[in-house]
């Protein structure tokens, strides 16, 4: 194994771990709510045993809460499964808008911890490129993190997917103009490596406050 492929393998596992940790946290939250519902049902049974009346409306409310959480858990697990299958093919035709929406949904909690969710702007007609889906998701997430960590005050981060001449471009907008000065390590060796693997040009525009990914 060459140094490059070893570094890439490590990066792949790191990204998978980061997303898996976030997903498992979400699942734990779902389980915690179901656990509280079950606990409340047990409390109610004890109250009934002591001769207190049981409200059918209250029971129905608890059942609805459990159903809501089961549906939420199901969505989370489906997302997790879809993410696990991202690495199935070395290259495939990828809908860029779909990748952006998927990553924003998959990492919703991590995004919420960084601030307001990004504004996503993708054309109605799918913009596609041939790429490795897993590492493209990694690069989109890395750039989104950069954008959210260095966004201009009172600005919402935007992600725009667009077709330009013979390429596809993803722009991360709303960064502070001085982000390059504040982020001397941009692009990092890790970002350069993943972009290089995918044949993606990773650039930044200080004046516009943007990071750009240009896919062939």
């Amino acid at each position, binding site marked *: 194994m060459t140094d490059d492929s070893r570094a890439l393998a490590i990066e792949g596992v790191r990204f998978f771990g980061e997303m898996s*940790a976030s997903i*498992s*946290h979400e699942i*734990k*939250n779902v*389980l*915690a*709510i*179901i*656990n*509280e*519902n079950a*606990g*409340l049902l047990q*409390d109610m049974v004890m109250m009934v045993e002591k001769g207190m009346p049981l409200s059918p409306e209250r029971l129905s409310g608890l059942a609805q*809460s459990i159903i*809501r*959480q089961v549906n939420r858990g199901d969505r989370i697990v489906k997302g997790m499964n879809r993410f696990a299958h991202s690495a199935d093919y070395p290259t495939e035709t990828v809908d860029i808008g779909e990748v952006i929406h998927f990553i924003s949904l998959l990492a919703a*909690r991590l995004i*919420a*911890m960084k*601030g307001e969710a990004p504004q996503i702007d993708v054309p109605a007609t799918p913009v596609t490129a041939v790429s490795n889906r897993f590492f493209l998701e990694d690069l989109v997430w890395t750039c989104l993190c950069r954008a959210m960590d260095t966004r201009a005050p009172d600005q919402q981060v935007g992600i725009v997917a667009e077709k330009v001449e013979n390429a596809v471009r993803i722009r991360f907008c709303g960064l502070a103009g001085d982000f390059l000065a504040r982020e001397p390590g941009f692009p990092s060796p890790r970002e350069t490596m993943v972009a290089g693997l995918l044949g993606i040009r990773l650039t930044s525009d200080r004046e516009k406050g943007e990071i750009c990914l240009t896919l062939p």
Partner: protein
Amino acid sequence: MKERVLLVDDEVEFLEIMAERMRARDMEVTTSTSASEALSLIASESYDAVIMDFMMPEMDGIQALKAIKDKRPEMQIILLTGHATVEKGVEAMKAGAMDFVEKPADLDALAKKIKKAHHQKAVIVQKQSQDKVIEMLRKFGM
């Protein structure tokens, strides 16, 4: 005397149901969906225990814990987390947490910790009062 608890979590359903169960156990419970709101509440109200999620938007549990301890050192803080690792636990305890509990939590076990928090807070408040008296006596040369 009822234990006064501030429950902080961005999961609204979790907050509502847990608060209902705690109230049924004769606790006085206030809920908050964010660390910033919790910080405003502790500025004007006194709680025996603040039970707070480790991972929240805006401010994470450790940051919030430090901010609360800075303002109200007597308040006892119990952090709730999806995954209780040794590293996180050590970090929380070093920052001044009373305890660190994994979700889903056993409410009866948590209730025991809240009683302990009530007792510990009372001891700290008593010590703070004694220190004030000693300070005053020193000022008067006694």
